[in-house]
């Protein structure tokens, strides 16, 4: 195995991965208002663009989510650079492992007929995971903003509805009037409950992690002031705030964020494949085969007549 050297392309990919995060951190430092103590607030608003109906706020969450997308893009470009038929480099082995795992997950949960959904699920996993992990850098995680997750959920909702229509428009409309027509409003509500519950599950988990970390570090600052406050020089410095929050961030930032990314991807897969079940797919394939058969027969007949 020959060791590959970094060339210019790899260096550019690495820069694409790292520079957006540095830019986001610099913006955060510049725009954070100077204040005593710790405040719990939503995302900071960086710029405001005047629009006809309502001003458009470019907030921290949007800037950070663009940084996350650029990071994932850079990582994908870096991992897939210089692919060979026989894997020679470590990064190719890692890239192949990721692709195989995701495709295995998709095949296992959605069935073979949704095989092409691997990239979407991989993108959801990567962007959600990296967003939640970006709070380790001190940034506001984009997943703690309800707007970002709501966008993803609406995308998933559109996909679910599309696949339900694909299973037959008549069946889709009939599904609202079951078991009796009186239940129609309830069925409509339960239809819209899917994206809402997906949004609030992910958003609430990450937001609670953010709030609890801030409360914990405030409490530790007060506690260290209480215990070590009488020491002349050291006392003014919150000693207990070093290291202890990291143990809690192991759960709240890393474990909880990654589990929620996995669950969001899992629910996406299950909802999409439930909207278009195996039987509907088989029926569709059967109809298509019959149509192709009839067309072939007609063409043969036409050829015979000629």
């Amino acid at each position: 195995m020959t060791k590959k050297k970094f060339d210019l392309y790899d260096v550019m990919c690495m820069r694409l991965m790292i520079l957006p995060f540095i830019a986001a951190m610099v913006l955060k430092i510049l725009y954070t208002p100077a204040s005593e103590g710790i405040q719990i607030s939503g995302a900071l608003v960086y710029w405001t663009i005047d629009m006809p109906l309502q001003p458009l706020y470019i907030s921290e969450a949007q800037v950070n989510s663009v940084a996350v997308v650029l990071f994932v893009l850079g990582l994908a470009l870096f991992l897939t650079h210089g692919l060979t038929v026989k894997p020679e480099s470590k990064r190719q082995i890692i890239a192949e492992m990721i692709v195989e795992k995701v495709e295995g997950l998709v095949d296992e949960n959605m069935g073979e007929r949704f095989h092409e959904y691997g990239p979407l699920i991989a993108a959801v996993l990567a962007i959600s995971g990296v967003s939640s992990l970006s709070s380790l850098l001190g940034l506001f995680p984009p997943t703690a903003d309800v707007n970002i997750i709501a966008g993803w959920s609406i995308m998933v909702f559109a996909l679910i509805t599309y696949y339900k229509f694909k299973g037959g428009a008549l069946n889709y409309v009939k599904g609202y009037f079951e078991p009796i027509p009186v239940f129609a409003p309830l069925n409509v509500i339960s239809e819209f409950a899917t994206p809402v519950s997906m949004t609030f599950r992910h958003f609430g988990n990450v937001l609670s992690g953010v709030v609890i970390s801030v409360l914990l570090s405030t409490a530790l600052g007060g506690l260290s002031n209480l215990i070590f406050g009488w020491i002349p020089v050291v006392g003014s410095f919150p000693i207990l705030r070093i290291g202890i929050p990291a143990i809690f961030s192991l759960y709240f930032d890393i474990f909880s964020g990654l589990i929620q990314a996995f669950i969001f991807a899992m629910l996406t897969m299950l909802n999409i494949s439930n909207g278009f079940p195996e039987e509907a797919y088989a029926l569709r394939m059967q109809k298509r085969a019959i149509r192709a058969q009839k067309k072939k027969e007609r063409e043969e007949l036409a050829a015979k007549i000629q």
Partner: protein
Amino acid sequence: MELAIGILLAGCAIGAGLALIAGIGPGIGEGYAVGQALSAIGRQPECKGSVTTTMIMGCAIAETTGIYGLVIGILLIFVAPNIFVNILLNAIK
């Protein structure tokens, strides 16, 4: 005036406390799920991996209702008082 704002803040705090009662259900449910998973692992130790993965998935989904309560509690403590006090002040003007 002060009395009105005081009642408002007290209402927000009591509401946040009541919202967190939603944590009871997920607690019981997750405990039950983990207990069942442990007994399953005890019966068949060889399928520990898949049982653990499924259990963590199920626990995270069962957490949802508790998280709803938590979100409402956080909103009532950190977001709602400002908005309500502003509404009150505007109404008095």
